[in-house]
């Protein structure tokens, strides 16, 4: 019963209309990273948004830390699930430190004044993502890569068992990708957190994911280890590639992925 998250026959989508993805069932345990892959518009974000309650589920079940999602009110949800979305935020006149500090929301009192414990959690999270130098700077003036680090630190200091990350590495250069993913991996392995993330960069999947869920054609196409999923055949189906090109792709992909895995795991 140590599932941090499990979904059963979950249908996700928008209120009026057909489900975007049907019958999603998977479990996430402590210390595990699950990667959702699939083409643009396959419904990866829709699944993640449903788990974080940005969208209402259409049917099926979601349990978080062995509790049915109906039993969890907003506040206890906030202590169990944190997230980083692709949506850009535009806070006015907030320093990076203050943006990270918003992660402590569920733990502060009526007026949201930070205590000592909160401050040390914030410092630690900033340290962890390596954003110490920029913590005093205006959030709207730092680069995309720095911004993503700050948003990750925000999610980390929310101190939840489950982190939901929607394309955490999109728009970043390769070094930032490596940095961010190393932090995520370290967090999961050392602090026994669980992560569900969607990702377009398949080359990073073997280094990161314990389990890969491929989404295709309004359903879960396959679930398995990176080795099982990232094959030429599967790639051809999931990404609508031409016959034969999947194998060429997979061969190169695995070479690159192995080098990246070495880089990420040595950190």
């Amino acid at each position, binding site marked *: 019963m140590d599932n941090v998250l499990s979904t059963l026959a979950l249908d996700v989508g928008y209120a009026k209309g057909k489900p975007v993805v049907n019958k999603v069932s998977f479990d996430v345990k402590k210390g595990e990273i699950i990667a959702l892959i699939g083409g643009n518009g396959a419904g990866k974000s829709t699944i993640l948004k449903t788990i974080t309650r940005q969208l209402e589920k259409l049917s099926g079940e979601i349990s978080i830390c062995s509790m049915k999602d109906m039993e969890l009110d*907003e506040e206890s949800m906030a202590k169990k699930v944190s997230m980083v979305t692709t949506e850009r935020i535009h806070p006015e006149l907030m320093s990076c*430190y203050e943006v990270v500090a918003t992660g402590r929301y569920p733990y502060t009192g*009526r007026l949201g004044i930070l205590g000592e414990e909160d401050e040390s959690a914030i410092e630690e999270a900033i340290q962890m993502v390596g954003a110490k130098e920029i913590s005093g700077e205006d959030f709207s003036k730092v680069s995309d890569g720095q911004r993503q680090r700050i948003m990750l630190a925000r999610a980390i200091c929310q101190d939840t068992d489950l982190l939901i990350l929607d394309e955490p590495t999109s728009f970043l250069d390769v070094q930032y990708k490596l940095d961010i993913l190393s932090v995520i991996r370290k967090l999961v392995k050392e602090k026994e957190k669980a992560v569900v993330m969607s990702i377009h960069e398949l080359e990073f999947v073997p280094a990161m994911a314990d389990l890969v869920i491929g989404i295709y054609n309004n359903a879960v196409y396959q679930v398995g280890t990176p080795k099982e999923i990232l094959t030429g055949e599967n790639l051809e189906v999931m990404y609508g590639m031409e016959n034969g090109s999947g194998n060429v792709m997979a061969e190169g992909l695995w070479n690159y992925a192995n080098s990246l895995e070495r880089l990420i795991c040595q950190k």
Partner: protein
Amino acid sequence: MKPEKKRSTYLFPVMIGILFLCFVLSIRVGSADVTMKDIFATLFSSGEDYYGSIILSIRLPRIIAAMVLGGALAVSGYLLQVFFGNPIAGPYVLGISSGAKLFVAICMVVMVGKGVYISSFVMVVAAFVGSILSMSIVMMLAGKVKNMALLVVCGVMIGYICSAITEFVITFANDSNIVNLHNWSLGSFSGISWEHVWISLCIVSITLVISFLMSKPIGAYQLGEAYARNMGVNIKRLRIVLILLSSILSATVTAFAGPISFVGIAVPHIMRGVMKTAKPLIMIPGCFLGGAVITLLCDFIARSAFAPTEVSISAVTAVFLAPVVIYILVARRANQRG
């Protein structure tokens, strides 16, 4: 680590000091000049002499009303800006003040026509109904019009329509009792009584305390709906509360002083610049103080610049604050990089 904390600790006393200076200035200067000695004499006596009656029954209620209602208007604008996630929102430019004005005018004309005395409380309720109605129209439009500038244009149009109907109502009900209505409908603190002051003090202070206690979810909401929800904020409830608080504040102002232009939109912007933060914990009291100072000064100018003739307060606030609004619009346009 947190410079804005230090900044606000010395800025708040400074602002309270400035407010006090404006207060003294406003009491002293007017169509009858009063010296400090007279003021003290009045405060410690029965107040039955000539200066005493001017201070106690005319000037003091007017000054307190300008401070309380000006502050309320600024906070109302701040809450609206949070709601729309946009600094070009305010009760006046969105037509909310004018909706309130229309309802108060109708209410007055109907009641006065029947010879019924209208209590201040009824006026506030009428203003509140008007605010909520124009607010719902604005929100309906906001669902269709995603562009904030366009929404403001719609708001201004709603304002014009309401003002025009108010003019009809006032013109056709030209009774000597409601001759005051014309001044009021342009925005003015003249003729405010102690009863109005007490009622606005009650309503505004309660609403302010509630707004201040909502600082935490308001701060979370500034990060966008998705993150706020993830932090455990009940978004629907927060949005309703924001609308209600903002409408109550601007309705109270409109009921007693008529529509006052641009304070609600410009003061929060000025205060963000002064305080160098957008945190509600600092901005809510900051906007109140800033609104109080600016409105008090504008009212001072309105009654003393062309004394003994008075100009409407909106004329003064427009001259000083509309340029700020233009600046915000232009600066935002310049900052939009894709």
